[in-house]
């Protein structure tokens, strides 16, 4: 189990300032060290040497629209929020990586390592294979999901919590109440094991976020932890604020990206 300590110095974070951008993105700019990601993105967008007709066409196909705003937003996400960007728009992420950033990535190594470790460990769990899952009783399934939570908590370095089930309102697949992970009875009874595992990892990630808020230095990105802290105080439910506000708030965007990555790696694309 990881110790609870400040791991900031272990992270290969991109260096501050214009050093983190490819040199070609800064060519022609005056005082690039004073510019933010957005200004540099706009410069790249308007530079035909960097973003010529061929790339523009390919980008339009992937992004669905060719507006500068969309490009600038994607460029900023690639640099400043790569983990979420990678999960939400993998084709666009690959485009940025291959055609504009020449393979350079900004994913924080510690988080990437944790995801790899989780995937490798979960792939060894027989009971969450689809062909095994479908023959399990509800009790056995709940035990299997508890094993998923136990494994994830160990990898993440936090205290494991219980996994329970109950019927839930339409559209609600689970929740974390501060003490336990709850999965809907409908989700547990479904043969869609990828969905069930995703739920446990997603809710477990909320437990991780809570743990990070309570233990400064535990999570490498303190700015992100502050965003989680603020978000928990003003949490936006889908029932009152709509799906977009719910989905894009910091704790949910992070949990969705985290769980989706592992789910995709274990169960494949489209699952």
């Amino acid at each position: 189990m990881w110790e609870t300590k400040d791991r900031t110095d272990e992270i290969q974070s991109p260096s501050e300032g214009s050093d983190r951008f490819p040199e070609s993105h800064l060519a022609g700019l005056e005082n690039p060290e004073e510019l933010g990601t957005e200004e540099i993105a706009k410069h790249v967008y308007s530079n035909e040497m960097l973003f010529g007709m061929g790339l523009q066409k390919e980008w339009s196909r992937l992004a669905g629209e060719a507006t500068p705003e969309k490009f600038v937003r994607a460029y900023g996400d690639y640099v400043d929020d790569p983990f979420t960007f990678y999960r939400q728009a993998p084709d666009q992420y690959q485009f940025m990586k291959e055609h504009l950033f020449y393979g350079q990535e900004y994913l924080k190594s510690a988080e990437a390592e944790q995801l790899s470790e989780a995937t490798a460990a979960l792939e060894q769990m027989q009971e969450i294979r689809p062909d095994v899952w479908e023959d399990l009783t509800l009790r056995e399934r709940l035990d299997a999901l508890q094993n998923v939570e136990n494994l994830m908590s160990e990898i993440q370095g936090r205290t494991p919590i219980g996994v329970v089930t109950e019927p839930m309102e339409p559209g609600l697949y689970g929740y974390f109440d501060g003490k336990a992970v709850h999965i809907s009875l409908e989700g547990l009874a479904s043969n869609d094991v990828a969905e069930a595992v995703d739920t446990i990892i997603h809710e477990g990630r909320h437990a991780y976020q809570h743990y990070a808020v309570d233990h400064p230095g535990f999570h490498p990105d303190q700015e992100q932890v502050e965003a989680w802290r603020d978000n928990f105080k003003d949490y936006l439910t889908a029932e009152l604020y709509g799906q977009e506000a719910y989905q894009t708030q910091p704790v949910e965007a992070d949990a969705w990206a985290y769980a989706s990555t592992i789910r995709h790696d274990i169960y494949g694309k489209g699952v």
Partner: protein
Amino acid sequence: MKDLNKEELTQHLMTEFSYPARGAALVAEKLMKLHPELEAQFVIWWHNGSLPRVTVEEYTVERLMHEHSMNPIAAMLTLDWLLREPEQAKASLKRGHDHAVRGS
């Protein structure tokens, strides 16, 4: 939205729909920017309670209320998202939602 005032919207959201102050301000801000296809129907609903009948990507206000437990306001905001970013919105709705609440 020329027929409604943001401050009035905010106040009404708090008094009639029990939104907290910050949440009401956030919702009012979003409602003021509703897609033109939804704006007129929202105003009608706001004044007389008739739910909009618009369909976006096979979703209606009623469907979002029944299948996702949304109130009419949340449902209309979701239809707005479906109009602006259909693929992302549909993928999110297919998954559903959870609650990440802090324990006592």
